[in-house]
């Protein structure tokens, strides 16, 4: 079935025309996943029976000409740190093996209300900690575009599933770039909304003040569609905003685009830099927009600040996995031994590293020196963003300083791996919205991603620009 890779609105159109039924699409999709995912490993669990069952219910809706939702029959893959009721949620960790979710995440409820079909749970870096999807109890994910390469992370499974055509849309979570970076590595669109736009209820917390759920899709329009559905105030998440839904402005706007040239001088691969440069200059010319060189001095503090804050929050958020109520438990002679054995064995090396680092930053006597200082630097980063947003409407950077790398290449060197997030973490620290859109490939055939950041809650205009850029890039570089 070649209709597997259609964007949302075309897929629904086909259903409506009676070209095929949701159950037919799901059946062939599952066949495809069974055949091909053994080489990619993007799914931790495929909801074979449940998805077909649900599709058959939707079939009837078509036959009975009932009212249908805006994601009618759209297969959606969900990152395994977002709870789907009655399904195992592992976060790619041994410690949650066997934990069956007792409720639906708010975003899942919203997707289901729009008649989406959950196709399965996708692979990820354990608890969202990683940038290559190599830290997973379910094994590494392979980049569908190039064998032996990582798909990025931590939502590597979701990005790979979309790139491989295993689902129309996917949800990921983005704490420091975990939606945008894998989207860039896999040549798809990944979007992190403004912090507080999308409810985190039912997202297994990594770092509460940075986590945000976002869509991974084949194009910008689908990203917008999913975003509009999952966004909104949630009684159950007191950090969500009670503000009107964003709209894409219809009128023409003469956008001002900021490009931190100096920032790109170090550590960004030449090919990526050149591509961004070229696109931006020509795009701006064609639209008669303004391109401004801006400074982002605080960016260099972003990685250490990010790791102190997210580590601190993670050390607390992951304390509940203690072997007492659910998930893995290794027995011990006394209580402390149960904790030590369960957590020592249940968490992977990278997770342990971050818990230990984060716990350290919160210790009395060190708290001021690390956590408080990091919070101060964090407000400096936000301030610099806001200053820049006085002058420009958007700030554009590469999503990652380098394209997808070989599996195993950086896994032994955490610092190197952390640096792949250099352009993405600041958006999380400041809570601003940011999207990654594909802009062609390197000579080696690896996708390049462009990141566009905007003011908090300015998603409407961010998507307007992204749609224009996507259009421009597609015309120039094809798909």
């Amino acid at each position, binding site marked *: 079935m070649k209709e597997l890779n259609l964007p949302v609105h075309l897929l629904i159109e086909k259903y409506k025309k009676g070209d095929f039924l949701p159950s037919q699409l799901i059946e062939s999709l599952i066949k495809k996943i069974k055949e091909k995912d053994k080489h990619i490993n993007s799914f931790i669990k495929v909801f074979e029976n449940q998805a077909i069952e649900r599709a058959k219910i939707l079939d009837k809706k078509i036959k009975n000409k009932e009212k249908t939702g805006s994601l009618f029959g759209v297969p959606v893959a969900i990152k395994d740190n977002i709870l789907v009721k009655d399904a195992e949620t592992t976060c790619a960790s041994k410690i949650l093996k066997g934990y069956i979710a007792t409720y639906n995440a708010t975003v899942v409820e919203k997707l289901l209300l729009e008649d989406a079909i959950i196709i399965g749970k996708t692979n990820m870096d354990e608890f969202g900690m990683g940038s290559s999807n190599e830290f997973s109890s379910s094994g590494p994910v392979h980049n569908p575009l190039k064998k032996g390469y990582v798909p990025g992370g931590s939502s590597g499974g979701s990005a790979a599933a979309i790139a491989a055509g295993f689902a129309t849309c996917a949800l990921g979570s983005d704490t420091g770039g975990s939606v945008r970076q894998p989207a860039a590595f896999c040549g798809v669109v990944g979007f992190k909304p403004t912090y507080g736009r999308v409810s*985190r209820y039912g997202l*297994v917390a990594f770092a509460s003040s940075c986590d945000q759920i976002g869509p991974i899709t084949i194009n910008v329009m689908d990203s917008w569609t999913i975003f509009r559905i999952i966004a909104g105030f949630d009684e159950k998440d*007191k950090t969500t905003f009670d503000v009107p839904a964003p709209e894409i402005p219809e009128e023409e706007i003469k956008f001002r685009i900021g490009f931190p040239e100096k920032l790109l001088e170090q550590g960004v691969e030449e090919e990526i830099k050149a591509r961004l440069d070229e696109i931006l200059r020509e795009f701006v010319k064609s639209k008669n927009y303004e391109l401004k060189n801006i400074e982002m001095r605080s960016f260099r503090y972003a990685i250490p600040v990010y790791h102190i804050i997210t580590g601190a929050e993670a050390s607390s958020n*992951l304390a509940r996995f203690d072997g007492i109520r659910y998930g893995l438990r290794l027995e011990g002679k006394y209580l402390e031994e149960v904790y030590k054995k369960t957590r020592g064995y249940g968490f992977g090396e990278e997770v342990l590293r971050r818990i230990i680092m984060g716990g350290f930053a919160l210790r009395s006597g060190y708290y001021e020196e690390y956590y408080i200082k990091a919070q101060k630097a964090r407000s400096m980063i936000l301030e610099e963003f806001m200053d820049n947003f006085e002058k420009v409407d958007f700030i554009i950077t590469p999503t990652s300083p380098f394209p997808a790398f070989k599996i195993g290449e950086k896994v032994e060197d955490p610092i190197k791996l952390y640096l792949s997030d250099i352009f993405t973490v600041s958006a999380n620290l400041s809570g601003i919205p940011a999207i990654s859109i594909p802009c062609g490939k390197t000579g080696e055939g690896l996708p390049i991603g462009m990141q566009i950041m905007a003011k908090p809650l300015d998603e409407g205009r961010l998507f307007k620009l992204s749609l224009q850029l996507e259009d421009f890039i597609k015309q120039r570089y094809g798909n």
Partner: protein
Amino acid sequence: METKIGLEIHVELSTETKMFCPCKNEYGGEPNTRICPVCMGEPGILPSPNFEAVKKAVKVGIALNSKINRFSIFTRKNYFYPDLPKGYQITQYGTSIAEGGSVNIKSGSVYLERINIEEETAKSIYTENGEVLLDFNRCGIPLLEIVTLPCIKSPEEAVEFLKELRRIIRYLGVSECDMEKGMFRVDSNVSVSKEGRAELKNLNSLKAVYEGLLYEIKRQKEVIEKGEKIRRETRLWDEFKKETRVMRVKEEELDYRYFPEPDLPPLELSTELIEKIKKEIPELPYQKKQRFVKLYFLDEKDAEILVSEKELADYFEEILKFYKNPEDVSSWVITELLAYTEPENTRKLGLSASEIAQLVKSVNENKITRNIGKEILKRSISEKIPISELIKKEEKSIIKGDDIIESAVKEVIEENPDVVEKYIKGKKGVLGFLIGQTMKKLKGRADPKQVGKLILKKLEKNS
């Protein structure tokens, strides 16, 4: 050596639901039936603060003369224990919902440092075969943490303060403060010298507070007299052995790694809300006591007893509505009614205020004797017969005519010639005995004053 005691009191607020989830806040019940993903600390959950609990906390703060902070934040207190499902407790640290405040006791004031809102932990149940079971029904119940300055000087003061604090909170109707049910728990800091202090835990009753502090003060003084230093440590009061023992020393103290709760925005209170709550504060026990003394001319001690429970004080005033004789009504309530029940349960006796009023009035008007009045009270309580009915019966059977009483008096005088002799010789005190004997013959169905008069008349005749 100067003794300094600081107290930390945890009060479970009585609210419809728990602090951060919609589970019912009730005591006991089938274990683990009032739980949900939130209070069980399941992955992905987020807390939603209970506004009712916040308002009740503000109420307590206002009643304790604290400064209400219009802006405070929630904090995570991190430690591992099976009764703490998330691995951290949401509490307040650094900024509290209320700061400062005081409670007046006889010897002065006890000053408060702060009042925090936090969440309750699960209940551990220790079985005979060494297992520990967990009941999460309690987990997440809203809790107030009230911390005093170390300004209390003796165990007596500590207990007096706790009684008054408990009374105020009960008056506010925000907690039952039942210590046996763990709704009002006390920890303490004690020091007798500038250096070194001990934290005292497991003070589960006012008696334990008193005895534990007394023991700890004595222990610390003995340590110092020996020339040794007081170690900074946490000690546990053993109610059976009547001693405190080391639970952990300073080096073993946990580092709670406090940091602001990122899942909750700061707690903001409007001045309007604070003003509104201020208006809802009822008359507090010490205010009520002053009023009772001034308005009803009661003595301090009686007023103190009457205001000990709001229910009792209200009951007392309701009786006054039917019979405005504060002195006698207070005497009946305190000496007779409270013989049958605890102050907080007076209404459970099932006696209406109007009936009690009628009883006191009937005695005062000599329609029945005080003894018969007591009898009636007893029967009404035990046999559930209305007082008015019993009074009617007694009034009918009461002997009013002098002739019957006179014949009884005659008998008594004849039967007790020696006593009569004594009276004549000037020992007037024996009159009471003779009245008593006569009343006995009349089975109490006469007015003792009338009996006395008749005895005197007879004796005068005799002499």
